[in-house]
Each structure stands twice: as structure tokens, then as C-alpha cells.
């Protein structure tokens, strides 16, 4: 007897959101890091308008990646420290459902940070980042990070050097996301022709889908022992 996929996913997401609303452990760390990063970049790079246009997409994605890394590390560490993952794995649920549940929880947290960051950077950098295509790029990119991050955080959290290991394992793997997301963001902000950012966005969506399917298949092996 296996618990239905949706029931399991919903239970894990509800549990993660409920615990986070109460503790604000992940959001406060990720949010504060993101805020400090963009402030630091904004003061450190005293840029004119043209130079700002050049770097803002890089600043946005680098900040999002590192904020996500902090959140993912903490999220899985909480599961490990409280032993919850063992109890979930001992239940009659598919590993794919556990993966999707944890992924959606992580995506919501990184998404919240992303959507605080966009208006903040709009104010700090004097450029409108609140554009529909850019919001869509952020959603897809963050979903991709959360996908890879959930798999790798589950793997690295079992090691002693987990905090150092996650970025080392994750950064090379998310490179295709970062490059494509930065390309799409740059094209959107520079007002390039729609087909230019649309092709980058399409590529980002395709990479995300491939990574999602791969991670879904690999998760069973990651939690297998």
C-alpha cells in the first residue's frame, strides 16, 4: 500500500511551510544575505547607467544562487538534525514524492527571496526589474536551482563538510542555468528584440526540465542507503 503521490507532496510542503512560518529560520538568513549582497554590490560598483545595465543581471543571479545555497543547506540540515528524513523514508511513500515535496518547499522559500530582490534592485539600481518576462525568467531559474539544490543538499547533508561541499558540488552543475538566465535577463533589460530573450528563456526552460527529470530519477539512489 503506497500513499498517493499528491497526498505525500502536499504533506511535506505543508509541513515545511508551517515550520518556516513559525521559525523564519531560512527566510531570515536568505533574505538578509540577499539584502546585504545587493547593497554591497551597489556601493562597491559605482557605475554609470550603461555599466549598471551590463552588470545588474549578473548581480541578480549571483545573489540568488548564493542565497539559495544558504537556504538549501539549512533546509536539509534541519531534516537531518531532527531525523525527520529517516521517518519520511520509513513511510510507504515514493522517493519521487519526497523529492517533489522538498523541492516545492525550497522553491517557495527561494522564490520569496527572489521577489523581494526584484523591487529592491529596481530601487537601488534605478532600472525596472519588475517586468513580466524577467519575473518568468526568475521563476524558471529558481525552480531549476531548487531542483538541483534539493538533490545535492540531500547528498551532501550526510557528510561532515556539508556547508562547504554543497557549493562545490552545485556551482559547476548550475552553470548552464546561470549563463542562460543571465543571457535572458540581459536581453530583457536591454530592450532587445523579443525573439532574443525568448530563445534564452526557452533554453532555460528546457535545461530546467531536463535537470528536473534527471534529479527525479537520481533521488532514489541518493536516499537509497
Amino acid at each position, binding site marked *: 500500500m503506497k*500513499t498517493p503521490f499528491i497526498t505525500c507532496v502536499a504533506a511535506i510542503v505543508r509541513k515545511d511551510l508551517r515550520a518556516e512560518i513559525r521559525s523564519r529560520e531560512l527566510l531570515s538568513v536568505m533574505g538578509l544575505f540577499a539584502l546585504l549582497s545587493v547593497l554591497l554590490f551597489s556601493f562597491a560598483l559605482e557605475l554609470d547607467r550603461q555599466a549598471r545595465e551590463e552588470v545588474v543581471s549578473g548581480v541578480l543571479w549571483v545573489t540568488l544562487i548564493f542565497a539559495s545555497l544558504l537556504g538549501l543547506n539549512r533546509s536539509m540540515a534541519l531534516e537531518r538534525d531532527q531525523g525527520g528524513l529517516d521517518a519520511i523514508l520509513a513511510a*510507504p511513500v515514493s522517493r519521487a514524492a519526497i523529492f517533489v515535496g522538498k523541492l516545492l518547499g525550497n522553491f517557495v522559500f527561494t522564490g520569496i527571496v527572489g521577489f523581494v530582490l526584484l523591487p529592491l534592485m529596481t530601487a537601488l539600481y534605478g532600472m525596472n526589474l519588475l517586468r513580466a518576462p524577467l519575473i518568468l525568467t526568475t521563476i524558471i531559474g529558481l525552480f531549476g536551482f531548487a531542483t538541483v539544490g534539493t538533490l545535492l543538499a540531500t547528498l551532501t547533508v550526510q557528510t561532515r563538510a556539508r556547508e562547504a561541499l554543497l557549493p562545490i558540488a552545485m556551482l559547476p552543475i548550475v552553470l548552464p542555468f546561470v549563463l542562460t538566465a543571465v543571457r535572458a535577463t540581459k536581453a530583457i533589460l536591454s530592450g532587445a528584440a523579443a525573439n532574443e530573450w525568448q530563445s534564452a528563456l526557452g533554453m532555460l526552460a528546457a535545461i530546467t526540465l531536463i535537470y528536473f527529470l534527471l534529479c527525479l530519477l537520481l533521488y532514489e539512489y541518493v536516499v537509497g542507503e
Partner: protein
Amino acid sequence: MRDEPAIILAERLSKAYGNLPALRSLDLSVKPGEFVALLGANGSGKSTLLRLLSGLSKPTGGRLRVGGWEMPGEALAVRARIGLVAHRPLLYENLTARENLDFYGALYGIDRRERARRIQDSLRAFDLHKRADSLARTFSRGLKQRLSIARATLHQPDLLLLDEPYSGLDQRAVALLDEMLAAARAEGRTIVLSTHQLTRVPPAADRALVLSRGRISFDAAIGSLDLSEIYRSASA
């Protein structure tokens, strides 16, 4: 569970972590409804055996059947019928007692209305109803252990696996745990409980097994138990 004479059947069961053997060619048979106390020093293989039985780990050799199902191949079917209590409480500190039970109840596919009823009954049975809406992080070790057993029995498992449940409990909590185990035994559940405290055999247990260096070195009914024999076996 399938109708089998043994709820647990291990034949030449082995488990190694790299080159380090944790269980060596272990043979074990446990009858339905039996309460087995698994004794042994730290590192003797008790936790490894319980992880194999619960499907959290895979054997590296031999054969293991739980409830008539082959492990690890049919672990999904077995998991629904197993309740696991580990030495850590496996609870979420930022959830209340009720929310913890609700979460695990959902994972075992118990529908919402039935879940609410069982949670209420369980909180009363384990004398936790007054703290039902308190966060688990505010609980003492004893209270957490009670909540942990409530969690592990919410889905009414046939087989209850407890790994070092006495760790960190004061005398009152130990007595309460023994009462709960006796009640579970009376309900017909099969229980396998591990402890490194060789003198801490639960009063309701039927059988004592001693694990030493990954092998069973002593196996006897509680009635014929000789403590000096147990000490000798554990230190062998």
C-alpha cells in the same frame, strides 16, 4: 501482513559498510506477536539490523523477509506495516505534537477525518492531550519519546521497531515506556527493541537476543534468562 509463520525471517543476513562488516551471516526468525529484546554493546550491529528491517538500509548479503515480503525489493509494502522509533525522536521541533502526528498520519495515507480521530485517541492514550498544541521543541526527552511512540503507532503497525528507546529517559519515563510497550504487546503487535543496557530487558519481552560483533551470540526465552550468560555473550 501475509499469513506466514515468521514475521521476520533472516537467512545468512550480512551488511557491510565498505570493508567494515556490521552484520555477519545472521539467522533470525521472529513469530508474529513476539516481543524481542535485542541486546548488545555499542557497535554490535543492533541499529544496522533495525535499519535493514525497516527498509532504510539494504543488505549486502543473505536474505531478509519481513511480513512475508522480500526486502529490500518489496520494502514499500512492508513500510506501511512498520512503526519505527529511533534513538532520536524523529519529530519536527517547530511543529506542535498534533501537527507532527498529522504530518506522519498523512504520509501513511490515513484520510483527514480518520487521522483527526486517531490523533485525538493517541494523544489521550499517551497522556499528551494537555500538550497537544505545544511545540515539540518545548518537550522534555520523556515527552518527546512518548510523542515518538504515538507517531510510530498512529498507523497501527503490525511490527514495532524501537532503537535504544530508553536512552536519556528518567525512571518515571522508563516505567511509562514499559507500560506502553506492554499495551502494544497485548494488542498483538510484534516488537523488536534494541538496547545497549544489558540489564534493561523490558518486562513484557518474551525473548532476549544478544548481538555481538554482528552475530547472534545468545538467544533465549525470557523465562530462562540468565544475566551472567548475557554478559558473557555480549563481551564475547
